[in-house]
């Protein structure tokens, strides 16, 4: 079981090493001239006003909550899809009930206007 993950671990290390190496190559060949104004964050040629990190819009938060709701559901679907033929009718009805409960939440979110971006 664990031996199946060995090539993935090796590929992971190798991919990171390759990317680090290429970025390192760039630092060898590239010039290094430090100028104060060059290191300023870009803001259309103006001096930046205020800090670069701001509060985010609450609408992004709503999307993230919706994503968590649906993604956990989808994670339950994956093992179910593998075995539902051998588990018989029970697994099918069980999952239909599960989707039904989820759809109630989905319709509620839609009616409440959580899906609107205006």
């Amino acid at each position, binding site marked *: 079981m664990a031996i199946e993950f060995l090539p993935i671990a090796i590929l992971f290390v190798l991919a990171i090493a390759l990317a680090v190496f290429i*970025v390192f190559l*760039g630092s060898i060949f*590239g010039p290094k001239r430090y100028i104060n104004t060059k290191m300023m964050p870009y*803001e259309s040629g103006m001096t930046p006003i205020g800090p670069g990190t701001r509060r985010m819009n609450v609408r992004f938060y709503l999307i993230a909550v919706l994503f968590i709701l649906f993604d956990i559901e*989808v994670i339950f679907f994956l093992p179910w899809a593998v075995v539902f033929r051998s588990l018989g009718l029970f697994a099918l009805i069980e*999952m239909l009930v599960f989707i039904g409960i989820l759809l109630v939440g989905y319709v509620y979110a839609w009616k409440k206007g959580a899906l609107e971006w205006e």
Partner: protein
Amino acid sequence: MSDPINLIANWLQGLLLGLGLSVGLTKIILSFVGAVVVATIGMLTVIFLIWLERKIAGRIQDRLGPNRAGPYGLLQPFADVIKILTKEYTTPDGADVVVYNIAPIMAVASVLLIWAVIPFASTVVGTNLNVGVLYIMAVGAFGLLSILMAGLSSNNKFALLGAFRSVAQLISYEIPMVVSLLMPVIFARSMGLVDIVEAQMPWFIILSPLAALIFIIASMAEVNRAPFDLMEAESEIVAGFHIEYSGMKFGMFYVGEFLHVFTVGALVATLFLGGWRGPWAEQYPILGLIYFYIKTFVGYFIVAWVRLTVPRIRIDQMLDFNWKFLTPLSLVLLIITAVLDRVLVLVNSERWVYSLVMFLANILIIWATVEVLKKTTSKPKRKEFPMRPVAMAPETSTSTEPSS
């Protein structure tokens, strides 16, 4: 001679065992060689893809594309690489340096990791995971993290906006993407990509064309290609999350994007177009490799074609399209596929009856969707302007002129 790749692998294994190495160490070295080959092929493919995409873009937009460096401009990507390597790295003031530098490396590594589980031919596969589909989803999330890290650490408002937009988009489209991935899992009764390819007696695009369509659309959003490239909308937020990256660090994002598009092509080929399947692919695995690459390029070409043809959509349209159209549609498809599968297995139907019923059900869903859309969506009302004469007829113009 029918299987040169495994011939080389067996030869290498024999050689290493002959040198007196243990079996475990031999396996590690073989995996390492395989990983080097996959990573190198990936990088070389990207260099070719950059040329190919620019050439396709030129043809579609009625211009020539790169044609100066080398024959047909083939050396253009190499010129680009040399140029980008000799550029200076600038790190903006106030940036979170560690996170800022990890982000481009993760952008490439996350995409390369997907290639570990894709079966290239009947005998050539990095590793046969039994949770392949889940692994693809998990590794794909690394790319999202790299974008978020780049945006948050750059100390730039545009980068932050681009990162928020892209994360909103990526997590939204992940849901229809995973649900559409469930259809191959249901048909093959396994999450392993090798099993999925072997189960495709008729290709799964015939069993479930709608799932393939949803998967391609959601993948286009996942790789941030037009029409879903809101995160780097040049006219609104300059370049999005990679605005503060220069030189090869920017190049890493660029390579990661191209490699991701190619990976989407490979996933479409593996999950829906039969992977390495084709005539005589079982006897000659090298043929399977060629079939796999052709199918991958078909998938890649579709994504590139759409990118070059349609304009960018607005952020509210993007979210509406996902939450109010793709997600419910994919759930309906899932329910109907599951119920039909259950019924067809109960009546113990033949393989071709099963395929035909599934295909017709998909066509029916597509037709019903189009009908529902016709009923529910309202056309945007345009103000009617009366036709204005562009030029007056000569006799009327002479008659209206005051006679002197």
